[in-house]
């Protein structure tokens, strides 16, 4: 029986605004198993990112219980690394320094400088950016920036990789390329992944389970779809895979039929 790494029990989140209480999430129940890849999908404004931020510990739930490794999530921690949608690299640091900042924080208490640098290089190597380590973020392309963001997250050797629409701002070709790389990296590191996406193909391709959220406000989990496609997955072969098409169809049915956004 695989271990549950994250447990979300009856979690609700509301914000008090000028116009009264805004309920973002209600009664969310989800267990995330070690090593699995999960996608959170839903229409915009359905609270996908809110849920991810809760797991990251950036925000706290208004009700319910969030556990990571059996302990309550009190704030961000190095075992839960986040890749932001807009890469969020610090523009005044080189790619190397951006990654080093994370490495230093996690490992400097027990390792020497040389080892920390080695770790930084290894992480950049993992995303294929060794040649760009001395460059500043504004000198590299959007896809490369996002890869540095992924390298920064991976360099902390997290147990869970939390990704908030990591490829949303990229063109289709770059996105496909990075998705393939991400699958390889996840296979190599055996890390757990939770990804927010609004791309149906991406969700099916990368996930073991696709968690579909109902429309906000007061969104909750509508359906959970298991994607039983063997890994490693090949996007070309999958184009003709009947199960892949079924999964796609199920998600589309949920998004565009059951949860069709009115007046959006």
């Amino acid at each position, binding site marked *: 029986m695989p271990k549950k790494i994250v447990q979300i029990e009856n979690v609700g989140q509301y914000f008090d605004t000028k116009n009264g209480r805004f309920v973002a999430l209600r009664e969310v129940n989800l267990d995330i198993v070690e090593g699995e890849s999960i996608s959170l999908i839903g229409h915009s404004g359905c609270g996908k990112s809110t849920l991810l931020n809760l797991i990251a510990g*950036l925000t706290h739930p208004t009700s319910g219980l969030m556990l990571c490794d059996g302990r309550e999530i009190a704030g961000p921690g190095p075992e839960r690394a986040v890749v932001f949608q807009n890469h969020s690299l610090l523009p005044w640091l080189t790619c190397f320094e951006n990654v080093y900042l994370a490495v230093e*924080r996690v490992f400097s208490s027990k390792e020497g400088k040389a080892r920390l640098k080695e770790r930084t290089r*290894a992480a950049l*190597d993992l995303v294929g950016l060794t040649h760009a380590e001395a460059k500043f973020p504004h000198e590299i392309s959007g896809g490369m920036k996002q890869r540095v963001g992924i390298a920064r997250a*991976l360099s902390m050797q997290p147990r869970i990789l939390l990704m908030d629409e990591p490829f949303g701002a990229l063109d289709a070709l770059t996105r496909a390329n990075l998705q393939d*790389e991400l699958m390889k990296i996840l296979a*190599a*590191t055996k890390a757990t992944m939770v990804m927010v996406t609004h791309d149906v193909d991406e969700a099916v391709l990368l996930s073991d389970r696709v968690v579909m959220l109902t429309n906000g406000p007061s969104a909750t989990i509508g359906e959970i779809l298991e994607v039983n496609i063997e890994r490693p997955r090949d996007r070309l072969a999958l184009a003709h895979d009947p199960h892949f098409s079924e999964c796609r169809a199920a998600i589309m049915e949920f998004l565009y039929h059951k949860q069709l956004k009115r007046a959006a």
Partner: protein
Amino acid sequence: MTAAAITDRSLTGTDMGAAKMANARTETAAAATPTVEAAKPVAIETVASTQSAGRAGEWLRAIGRAVMPPVMGLALLIGLWHLATINGGGIPTPAKTWEAAVVLFSDPFYREGPNDQGIGWNVLASLQRVAIGFGIAAAVGIPLGFMLGRFAVLAQMLNPIISLLRPVSPLAWLPIGLLVFQRADPAATWTIFICSIWPMIMNTAQGVTRVPQDYLNVARVLNLSEWKIFTKILFPAVLPYMLTGIRLSIGTAWLVIVAAEMLTGGIGIGFWVWDEWNNLKVEHIIIAIFVIGIVGLILEQMLMLIARRFSYETR
């Protein structure tokens, strides 16, 4: 094949590099691109050499376009000045002022007693006062600005006081300085300090509150210490705002020193202006106005250079 081989690996430090094989293809592709690019500059250079004669002419024209309007503006100013003063009156003509300037600048560093020193000494004395007053203002104002930006309670506490004191005329502060320090020199420095501190506090504080939330989220996710947040995120993000504050401050300081020195006397460009007025050497006053303007301009340009050097956007 690579992916299958990688699946067996676990995440230990050395094995992180193992997945690089997967990226080998991407890197080769990246490495191949420059070879294609390399061919282009050669072609451009050949074209350039044939056009070099035309280029030089163009270059001169470009310089002309950049220099001519300011020169014309200056000529217009001097022309009007000449027309206004040619029929006598208290103000000397440009030519007369120029003659006086030549004499004055032939020996800018003479000393004949404490009240008769060259214009060079006077400018340096003013600059020194500005440096000290402004330096102390920066040392106090910038950290205070950071604190105001970081802690909302402090901002709420001090903002009314700042709003109240900021518009006060520089010269209103001078008597307070004279009273406290009992001497003219520190009183002038105090006036510089109190007048040039506000832009630095305000701009730094504003910069801190405008640090993008994304960067602060990075800090939280990476769990950075307060010191790291300050050195790696806050300080670089605030630096452009801070430098704007410094630039405004030094402009103010230079404005204030002239006025303050007129009242405190001793030595300094402001005192010199007043002294020359008492001697009725009006051409010297006009020269002083130019000197004050030019020094102010140089100070401003120097800080612009520093700002550009430290701005991450243009690096």
